[in-house]
């Protein structure tokens, strides 16, 4: 059954995606929820929570307020907290209970903005979708709200789009990407949204190309492309071989103004000798490097929403535990690369490469989350 799992976890939810994407930008994010969303996010989806504080709160919705439709409590509490904390912006998002009661978050955001004088936007989450949806909307909204046309920076400036700990943990990928860009003749203009302030993100229009490193960066990339003509390249410069392709693609896209999806080569077989399970762009990038290294057929299983172009035109992928288990059993890859918690449904004959993914296994393997830019990461 598609909605059932015997033993593997589910991915982080849309509310966590919003919080994670906005974490470092100085805003205040409020999840309209009783208590579980913030506890889950802070414990399992946010590795920065202990050492780096951010204005992420819950509304502490009660039974009576839900029954009575007391949206005024939410609005007044957010305005009060904004008075005390003075955030750069406010984002409000929903969880399953507000979905049930039909809270109008756009109206609530407008009223909060009117009373507080602080730019406020609604995030359309309800706790039933994956973090991809939430983080995508959040990064897109930041681009739409704050990026304005400015002259291009000298050289080939690059925006990094789709960086959150949910996909990359604190394994160093975002910092390594900046270094890699520098070493390859590019410069990082902005990183949506790790290691940069809101002021840095506002300058994104000065870049000549965007590098999209996870699906969460796609809507922001498309916005920057449509609004400012900044093309984008989908893929992570991982390994010794695929990183060269990414470097060439960035140059080509900057010159031609055309979006490119080099990560798609990772998903070029129906039944890969090597199969990677995970978020589409990171998994495809890993698979691409493995393909280039070994010459073997590679395939990506992405249980999360994805852009077909990143997945070599695929329109769907096994997503549930049952589908993934059945699919893998049908052709038994030689090598499976995935989060360690997938091992429980993988054929035991397959060699298993651990690729911990924070959005899946949370803190369980947080010390082993890879730096995707490490050239030796996928050396077999």
């Amino acid at each position, binding site marked *: *059954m598609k*909605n*059932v*799992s*015997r*033993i593997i*976890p*589910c*991915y982080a*939810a*849309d509310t*966590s995606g919003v919080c994670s994407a906005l974490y470092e930008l100085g805003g205040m994010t*409020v999840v309209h929820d*009783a*208590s*579980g*969303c*913030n*506890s*889950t996010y*802070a*414990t*399992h*989806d946010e590795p920065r*929570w*202990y050492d780096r*504080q951010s*204005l992420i*709160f*819950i*509304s*502490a*919705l*009660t*039974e*009576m307020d*839900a029954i009575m439709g007391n949206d005024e409590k939410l609005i007044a*509490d957010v305005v*009060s*907290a904004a*008075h*005390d*904390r003075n955030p750069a912006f406010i984002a409000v998002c929903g*969880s*399953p*209970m507000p*979905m*049930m*009661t039909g809270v109008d978050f756009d109206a609530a955001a407008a009223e909060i903005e009117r009373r507080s004088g602080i730019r406020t936007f609604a995030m359309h989450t*309800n*706790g*039933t*979708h*994956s973090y991809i949806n939430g983080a995508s909307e959040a990064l897109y909204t930041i681009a739409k709200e704050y990026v304005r046309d400015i002259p291009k920076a000298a050289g080939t400036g690059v925006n990094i789009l789709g960086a959150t700990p949910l996909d990359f943990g604190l394994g160093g990928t975002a910092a390594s990407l900046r270094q890699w860009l520098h070493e390859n003749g590019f410069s990082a203009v902005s990183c949506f949204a790790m290691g940069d302030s809101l002021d840095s993100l506002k300058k994104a229009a000065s870049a000549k190309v965007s590098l999209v490193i996870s699906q969460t960066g796609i809507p922001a990339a498309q916005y920057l492309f449509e609004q400012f003509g900044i093309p984008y390249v989908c893929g992570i410069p991982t390994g010794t071989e695929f990183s060269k392709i990414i470097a060439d693609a960035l140059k080509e896209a900057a010159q031609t103004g055309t979006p490119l999806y080099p990560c798609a080569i990772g998903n070029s077989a129906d039944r890969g000798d090597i199969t990677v399970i995970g978020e589409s762009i990171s998994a495809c990038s890993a698979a691409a490097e493995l393909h280039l290294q070994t010459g073997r057929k590679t395939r990506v299983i992405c249980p999360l929403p994805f852009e077909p172009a990143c997945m070599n035109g695929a329109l769907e992928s096994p997503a549930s535990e049952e589908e993934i288990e059945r699919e893998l059993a049908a052709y038994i890859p030689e090598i499976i690369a995935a989060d360690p*918690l997938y091992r*429980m449904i993988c054929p035991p004959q397959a060699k298993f490469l651990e690729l911990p993914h924070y959005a899946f*296994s*949370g*803190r*369980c393997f947080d010390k082993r989350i890879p730096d995707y830019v490490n050239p030796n990461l996928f050396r077999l």
Partner: protein
Amino acid sequence: MNAAYEKPRSIRIADANPSVFFASGLEYNPPVRGMWNIVHTGMLIPGAHQIFACAQGCLRGVILTAAEMNALDRMSWISVSEQDMYDGTLETDIIDGCTDILHKLPYRPPVVLLFLSCIHLFAGVDFEIILTELRSRFPETEFTDCYMTPTMRQTMPPAFKMAAQLYAPLKPRPKNPRAVAILGNDRATDERSELVRLIRQNGFRLHDLTLCRTYEEYQQIAESALGISYTPAGKFAGEEAERRLGIPHLHIPASFDYSEITANYWLLCDSLGIPCPDFSAEIAAADNALDRSCAIIGDTPVAIDFTAVTRPFELAKLLTEHGFSVRYIIADTASDEQAAFQWLAEHCPDLEIFSAVNVNMLHFRQETHEPVLAVGQKAAYYFATDHFVNIVVNGGLYGFAGIQALTELMTDAFLTPKDSASVLRHKGIGCASCLL
């Protein structure tokens, strides 16, 4: 600083309303994870398999709780989509999902704890129909209704309901007049406590879920002729067990007040039909331990939080009476300990009460703090100290021996720092963890 806040994060005890200290508002979640949640508690039943039916956002926390406990093989889930909420299939989705899961399990669990969530209750799901159908499909398995309903936390806290449901799968059996049970705890009661010694030394068999290793041992709890509780959650569990299984319930709340502790033991002995001993020696030992500890800790400020002990104000009073410098309490209410609250308001009017969740606590840890000895994880985090007593819900301590043990823990915490970051991130004190 406080004065500038629309919703202050702290208040002098002399100015506080004992029923509610702070106005409600947005809430912050400090990164301390020692308290148990409903998954930890449910795992206490030997062999139980947990199935959660709820939205992805709600599933995530419970599943990863099990993952960190290395217990994913005892946890399955059914996700609920928007469409499911409105197409009339809520009940059948759960029945079919549970059936699918049970067919895939490599064994048939003796009991399934089936958790529904807030949205199910709001949608008016018929839980009884679900349970009836599942029981007919799997007659050898017990199905217990469980609830992950934080929205209803003010009318029925999920931890209380969970404590009660722990005993729902018990089958009634003849009472054994020499068997008693401690109910509703998520950790064993200290064997050194007068409570346990009174039971064991008078030849009674003590049942405690936290000590059960097999499902049969668990079922034997039902033979108890007396159910004892001493925590707030346990009280509800005891009342429910009395209603369902006819186990007479005795609530003797964990206290730091000597006269209440003594009165509790009189009640216990009366219920057991045994003579109540004299506790002068135990009281003297507790006093001596407090004095010894105070001689070492001196005037170091002490901060107590409500997650460590169920009666933080009573503990503060006891410590103050023995010379400790209790300066801070983290709590939202003192509703169960009015006498201690009033005493402290009179004798220590400047004692400061902090909110555990106020948004203005967010950066409190980064502010300059004098060295503090903390009792509890929230106090340790907020006051940025490595010197803290790492317990939740009394840590299994009870009575005069519990006071003695707690003072020893305070002395040890004062003398020996802990690695706060790694200790505080461990979810569910006492549970297995892949993070260790």
